């Protein structure tokens, strides 16, 4: 039987040779061996091979491999260093995680920092409010004579001097008597998105906000929505407070995760330092 004989037969013959075949398989194979000369020859060759291997010399070990007391003591001390790889790995992992936590903070902070900046600095709206001419100054500059009253546009919409209508802030300027070519000087700036107070703010009831628009009923209010200095100041203060509150809330939201991240970074740094130090001292002992 050559090597091209099916592997299964080799396995069966080999197992049969070692007495490892179960009864049904054994009987089947024995029946085949009686009929098949090639199979019988193959089995005989396997028997001879096994016999030759059985006569392989048993070599005596050249020396004793027992351990001396000194060797045993030395080996026992090295047993304590089996934590070295674990500690080293922990230190490396903690360092990597700490770096990751720092990067996370750097990624988060660009969101928080501009919010903090905007909360501390006046916004465009606030600046425009501050720069808006006060009724006081207008009154001071006003001529002594009673100004000519002009009903301009729809009552309640101030501004003027422009093709666009400015809504409700600042109020229109007075027109000097006899002057026909200067209209609406000192009018409010054009605000594309009219400022509106958030509806969820219950602390500022609508009644407390002074109305800057002229009375629609009789048209006898101030010209083009211009109010007195106290009213303007009070209104501006209310709006600025509201804006500042909104920005402060947004800033707080951005800063929520930062304290936890700091603690995580600190914890990881401690773990990395402690495990790294222990691992290093162990390694030094081994090197001695």
């Amino acid at each position: 039987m050559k090597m091209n004989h099916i592997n299964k037969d080799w396995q069966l013959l080999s197992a049969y040779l070692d007495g490892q075949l179960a009864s049904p398989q054994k009987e089947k194979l024995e029946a085949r061996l009686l009929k098949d000369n090639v199979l019988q020859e193959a089995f005989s060759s396997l028997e001879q091979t096994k016999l030759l291997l059985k006569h392989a010399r048993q070599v005596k070990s050249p020396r004793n491999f027992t351990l001396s007391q000194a060797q045993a003591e030395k080996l026992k001390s090295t047993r304590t260093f089996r934590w070295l790889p674990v500690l080293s790995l922990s230190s490396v992992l903690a360092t990597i995680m700490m770096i990751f936590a720092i990067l996370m903070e750097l990624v988060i902070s660009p969101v928080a920092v501009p919010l903090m900046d905007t909360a501390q600095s006046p916004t465009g709206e606030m600046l425009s409010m501050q720069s808006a001419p006060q009724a006081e100054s207008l009154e001071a500059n006003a001529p002594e004579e009673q100004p000519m009253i002009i009903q301009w546009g729809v009552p309640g919409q101030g501004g003027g001097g422009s093709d666009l209508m400015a809504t409700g802030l600042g109020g229109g300027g007075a027109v000097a008597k006899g002057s026909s070519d200067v209209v609406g000087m000192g009018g409010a700036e054009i605000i594309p998105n009219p400022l509106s107070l958030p509806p969820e703010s219950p602390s500022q009831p609508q009644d407390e906000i002074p109305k800057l628009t002229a009375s629609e009923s009789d048209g006898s209010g101030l010209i083009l929505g211009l109010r007195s200095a106290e009213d303007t100041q009070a209104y501006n203060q209310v709006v600025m407070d509201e804006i500042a509150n909104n920005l402060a809330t947004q800033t707080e939201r951005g800063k929520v995760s930062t304290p936890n991240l700091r603690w995580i970074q600190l914890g990881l740094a401690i773990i990395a330092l402690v495990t790294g130090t222990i691992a290093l001292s162990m390694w030094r002992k081994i090197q001695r």
Partner: protein
Amino acid sequence: MMDEIALALSAQQGDLDAFNRLVLEFQDLAFNIAFRMLGDPDAAADATQSAFIAAFKHLSSYRGGSFKSWVLRIVTNTCYDELRRQKRRPTTPLEPVLDGEDEEIESPQWLRDDSPSPESMLESSELEDAIQECLQTMKHDFRLMVIMVDIHGMDYQEVADNTGVPLGTIKSRLARARAKLRDCLQYFRELLPHNYRHDSEGNQ
């Protein structure tokens, strides 16, 4: 009969004498397996020593059962490590140069023996050399099966315990290894009378 489990448990508690008794009990078997696997007595001695040192260092991982199987698994793993190391960094042994060795020997030395008797042939060093040479030509996994089953007479279950290899794999590896050895040792097989095995087995 030595109680290997009791000795192993004592060794685990720090009893060096108990460990050394176990070493003395199994060192010949361990060395023989290492020698057949590595084909070099010095490398085998080193591997055996390393294996027993590793066994002592890792006594805490011994979970009862056959200490022999546990330690033989360490021995075989050490041999595999050594074989891998040799493969990575092959070395050329420094052999003494003998006169008349300039000519290339086409056939192994054991083929020169013309007509030895079966008995003398079985005890000859030529057969020993031939077996070792044939073993070295085989894959490591197949070699280990032949060493344990055919040379050391272990049964399949014992081999499975010693190596962690499943029984089915042992059967197939052994069959293929024997088929290879059958061709490799053909010269010696032909010297054996056809019915030699039965007589030999009967006399033993």
